[in-house]
């Protein structure tokens, strides 16, 4: 509620700032112009949004599958940890703007390089919290499983995997924040559609309001996904949100 109030004040200030002619509308369109662009260009924005949404959705899905598999492999097999983890960390230091054009050359102009880039960016923030949660499983629970004669696999399936679910959700939330940026960067490296592509086209055409509208849609999409994930988390993993001290 308070966040909404702050937002309204900011928007009002912004509108007034542009309205008094303090800045060229081509550089900073007023919120009302952006709203107009949202309505007038809705067909164009929607068709490009569906492209970017698919890139983000499929990219995150791929990152979730690979990230989960990676975290489990690193957790279960010590040699994999030594061999793979340093490589994972170094993979995160690769600047996306540098490799994005190369991936476009490699995979073509269509969806594939975008998914690869989004997945590449989102992979790491998924692996780290998931692996952390797996590694931090209560040592006494492991001892309990050992005393019951459980196999390594049973301990993983019955204890470690459920205990790591909150970590996986945290990773998914983090990756949502990065996915939008990654998708836009991927589109800038070469594409014919998508919100990032739309922004790139709108600016030289002096359609600044449309570019802002595209950014707004992308932000709203990320916030909506984040919200949906938070709701799902509270529904499905209520035990992960107990106040400290009440967990056994």
């Amino acid at each position: 509620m308070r966040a909404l109030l702050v937002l309204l004040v900011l928007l009002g200030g912004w509108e007034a700032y542009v309205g008094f002619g303090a800045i060229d509308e081509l550089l900073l369109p007023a919120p009302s112009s952006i709203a107009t662009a949202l309505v007038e260009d809705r067909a164009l924005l929607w068709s490009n949004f569906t492209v970017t949404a698919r890139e983000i959705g499929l990219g995150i899905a791929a990152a979730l599958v690979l990230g989960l598999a990676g975290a489990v492999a690193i957790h279960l097999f010590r040699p994999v940890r030594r061999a793979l983890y340093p490589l994972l960390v170094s993979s995160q230091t690769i600047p996306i703007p540098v490799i994005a054009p190369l991936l476009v050359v490699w995979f073509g102009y269509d969806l594939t390089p975008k998914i690869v880039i989004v997945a590449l960016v989102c992979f790491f923030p998924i692996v780290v919290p998931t692996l952390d949660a797996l590694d931090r499983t209560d040592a006494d629970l492991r001892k309990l499983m050992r005393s019951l004669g459980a196999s390594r696999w049973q301990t993983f399936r019955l204890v470690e995997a459920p205990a790591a679910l909150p970590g996986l959700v945290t990773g998914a939330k983090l990756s949502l924040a990065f996915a939008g940026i990654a998708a836009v960067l991927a589109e800038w490296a070469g594409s014919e559609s998508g919100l990032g592509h739309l922004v790139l086209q709108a600016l030289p055409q002096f359609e600044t309001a449309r570019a802002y509208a595209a950014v707004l849609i992308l932000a709203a999409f990320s916030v909506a996904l984040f919200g949906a994930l938070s709701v799902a988390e509270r529904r499905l993993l209520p035990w992960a949100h107990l106040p400290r001290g009440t967990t056994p």
Partner: protein
Amino acid sequence: MQTRTTALPEAPRTGIEVDAVRLEDVSKTFAAQRRGAAPVAALEGISLRAAPGEIVAVVGPSGCGKTTLLELVCGLIEPSGGTVDAQPAALMAQRDLLLPWAEAVDNAALALRVGGIDRAQARSQAGALLEDFGLGGFLQARPHELSGGMRQRVAFARTLLAGRPILCLDEPFAALDALTRLQMQDWLAEALRADPRTVVLVTHDVEEAIVLADRVVVLSPRPGRVVATLEVEIARPRRRTDPEIVALRARALEELRA
């Protein structure tokens, strides 16, 4: 690692029953945690036995190696010296260690699932036991919805369902409030009467030991040594106010202070 099972010799022809648990001159020393620190002797020269169906309580001050003793009996660790002979044992810790995401019935069924029984059958078996334990209305409850006493009962059900002849109980009620602890002690006495097992009960509560056990072994401060063994030949059900119990309790406390 499986709980170590040592094949016990056939009962000798003298008619003496074979011990379910037999520790002879057992010691356990832990390597130093830090470089340069001295190794820690947790137990020294411990001899202890429990006949099948017997309840043996081990009391001693904090840090005298009681938990180590149970882990030895359960085969979770190896002794540094001496021999440990024990039938398969199930361990119940002071922390209930219930899985926070699982329903009470799934928590109780954990040992069965580990034993390879499918979920539906494990749940129905565990559910029946929880109903016997007065938790019929809480089968689907998650641990955080249960009281401390209820959680310990679920943990005890899980331990029983492991199907081992020996139960190792490690201060099972220490985390409970005083009143709940008294109720749970009576409850445990009743549960063990219904389903007799060999029990090694570790506690720092002398009264708990005397109310529940057939024999009380008193350990010294670290490294733990047996300083006294008290036979509790008092008919059950036992009342805490019984003069015999009060006298025995005084004696045990005397030994602890010595």
